[in-house]
């Protein structure tokens, strides 16, 4: 067979050759043809890369879909999370939790936000001096009554310093809710409103935790009421060390540790 380079013939079924959908006779004939036809050889090489990528990807997908090889779940887990807990949207795509904003973004993390709210005077020392000067003038002027009338009340701290939606970890996809943090002086109140959580087993209950996802440090806040709502108090200093709220499913077995079965979570 003479070697040729022009594609002056119908392109043979090279994809069928790659996917194993040609007969033995066709495969041998294609081999003969490829030995002589540079165009088809280049065509096959072009297809080979994509073929390899597709095959490799399929194998990877099977590996990832296989039984996870991660560490075994603790024995006291009452819910064995599986891939069924993955939330799928209407287009069949897996729903990701919202991307947490980077610390140096325009969105302030809770800790920074709290510090700003707690120290409004420190942020503007000049404003403090102006206020002191005005006060002195008023006193010197004997305008005590005017002062009493016009003295501006101390601006209260913004009552709500953070809020976020709860999203399911191992809870059913329709489980949801919200958390909010409000401030009163140096006290922070965590308000939790969880919805559509299934009723735990007879010896189970839900517990609310503060979580630092970076270190996995957790602080128990208390048992979540069967109503799904609860309010928990904590100092601002402690609160500033956490950036997420976690709700776990616990066994009533006297073990105070987190069961490692998180059902809902919110990133503040």
């Amino acid at each position, binding site marked *: 067979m003479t070697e040729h380079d022009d594609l002056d013939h119908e*392109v043979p*079924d*090279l*994809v*069928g050759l790659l*996917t194993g*959908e040609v007969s033995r006779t066709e495969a041998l004939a294609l081999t003969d043809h490829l030995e002589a036809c540079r165009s088809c050889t280049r065509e096959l090489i*072009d*297809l*080979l*890369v*994509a*073929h390899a*990528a*597709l*095959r*490799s*990807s*399929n*194998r*990877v*997908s099977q*590996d*990832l879909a296989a039984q*996870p*090889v*991660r*560490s*075994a*779940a*603790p024995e006291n887990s009452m819910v064995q*999370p*599986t*891939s069924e*807990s993955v939330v799928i949207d209407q287009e069949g*795509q*897996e729903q*990701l*939790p919202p*991307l*947490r*904003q*980077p*610390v140096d*973004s325009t969105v302030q993390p809770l800790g920074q936000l709290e510090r700003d709210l707690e120290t409004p005077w420190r942020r503007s020392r000049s404003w403090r001096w102006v206020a002191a000067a005005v006060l002195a003038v008023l006193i010197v002027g004997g305008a005590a009554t005017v002062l009493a009338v016009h003295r501006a009340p101390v601006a209260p701290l913004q009552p709500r310093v953070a809020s976020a939606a709860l999203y399911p*970890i*191992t809870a059913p996809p329709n489980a949801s809710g919200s958390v909010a943090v409000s401030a009163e002086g140096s006290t922070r109140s965590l308000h939790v409103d969880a919805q559509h959580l299934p009723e735990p087993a007879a010896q189970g209950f839900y517990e609310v935790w503060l*979580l630092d*996802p*970076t270190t*996995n440090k957790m602080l128990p806040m208390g048992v979540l009421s069967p109503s799904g709502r609860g309010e928990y108090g904590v100092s601002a200093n402690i609160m500033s060390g956490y950036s*997420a709220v976690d709700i776990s499913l616990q066994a009533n077995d006297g073990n105070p540790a987190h069961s*490692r*079965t*998180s059902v809902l*979570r919110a*990133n503040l």
Partner: protein
Amino acid sequence: MTQAASESIGGRIAQADQGALEEAYRAYGPSVRAYLRRFVHPGEVDDVLQIVFLEVWRSRSRIDPARPFEAWLFGIARKRAIDALRRSSHDVVPVESVRELVGPDGEDFAERVAWSAELHAGLARLSTEQKETLELSYFAGLTQSEIADRTGVPIGTVKARMARGMHRLTAMMARQGAPL
């Protein structure tokens, strides 16, 4: 995804463009999550996922646009998965998890997952018909005849769609010798 687009994501993240980070999260987040789910306890997967992308952002000055962003991303994911595995030392850790995560085997697996993520990003850029045909063939295991029956188009059209789609995928990869 073309090289230009891929470089653009890495390059834009390097330039502190948060939109690019969110774009990367949408494009590669599901693949990273699937990879982490293989090794990390379910209750920690989404936290580790967030940590991975947070590290992408914080380490953006180290992004080399000339190199595949996906491989760099999955390198970070692998390291954070190892961290999570170490934290789980009080649990029983199967030896397979260590082998698939740590050492040359772990690097190889992460690279394969990264390549797969690149491929899926490339598939998303094909026409709906080409993407569907290739997915039915390579992921659902259908023959060309079965695809023709399923989609109601002549088998010649199935062959043409597959060939064109594969050429485009190859072109996306070959153009830069690295990422899609």
